[in-house]
């Protein structure tokens, strides 16, 4: 959208036009201050736990850490493929992760205000949700209990 706006401005006679591809996402993710109704409210990226167990599709369930009761299945680039919740982690230790993982878990972007997510997680009975960048890479996991506390 920004490159199109920049092109439009140039057509309107502006000669020194730049665009910031990182946009609000990059700015907020860097922890810089913003203005507006959401300013000062906690967001998904700051409340999420970033040190979370991850595993690959080829792993065996028995080899995945159960320390948080959730593990995120990622590819080699860190893109989220699925989720292992308590019930999957408690299943057959010999099962391949790919065969038991929850496909397409609900994810949120780091900039989304916690109050919006807390409501969604409660309505959909989600105990945890991966937080991902716009290209699907894992940032961390947000737990509903933490979201409710931070709201």
């Amino acid at each position: 959208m920004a490159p199109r706006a920049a092109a439009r401005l140039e057509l309107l006679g502006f000669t020194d036009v730049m665009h910031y591809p990182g946009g609000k996402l990059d700015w907020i993710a860097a922890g810089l201050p913003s203005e507006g109704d959401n300013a000062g409210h906690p967001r998904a990226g700051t409340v999420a736990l970033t040190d979370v167990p991850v595993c690959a599709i080829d792993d065996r369930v028995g080899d995945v850490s159960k320390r948080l009761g959730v593990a995120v299945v990622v590819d080699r680039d860190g893109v989220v493929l699925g989720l292992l919740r308590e019930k999957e982690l408690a299943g057959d230790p010999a099962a391949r992760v790919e065969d038991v993982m929850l496909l397409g878990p609900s994810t949120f972007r780091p900039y989304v205000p916690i109050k919006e997510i807390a409501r969604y997680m409660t309505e959909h009975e989600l105990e945890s949700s991966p937080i991902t960048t716009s290209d699907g890479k894992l940032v961390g996991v947000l737990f509903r209990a933490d979201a409710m506390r931070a709201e």
Partner: protein
Amino acid sequence: MAAPIDRDRLREMLTRGAQLVEVLPAEEYREDHLPGAISIPLTELDRNRVAVLDSSRPVIVYCWDSA
């Protein structure tokens, strides 16, 4: 063609008087915007709306990300 700039360059440009414009819908601007940015949604980017800008100074536009 307009040049892309990174966050550091953006901050430097702002200290030198560049004008910052968010081109997302006004509702998204109300929720969050960069400090000092003004709102001109892409769908409203016409001669009247840009009259608030100084064409002799740099203008930097942004949205959520590179999309």
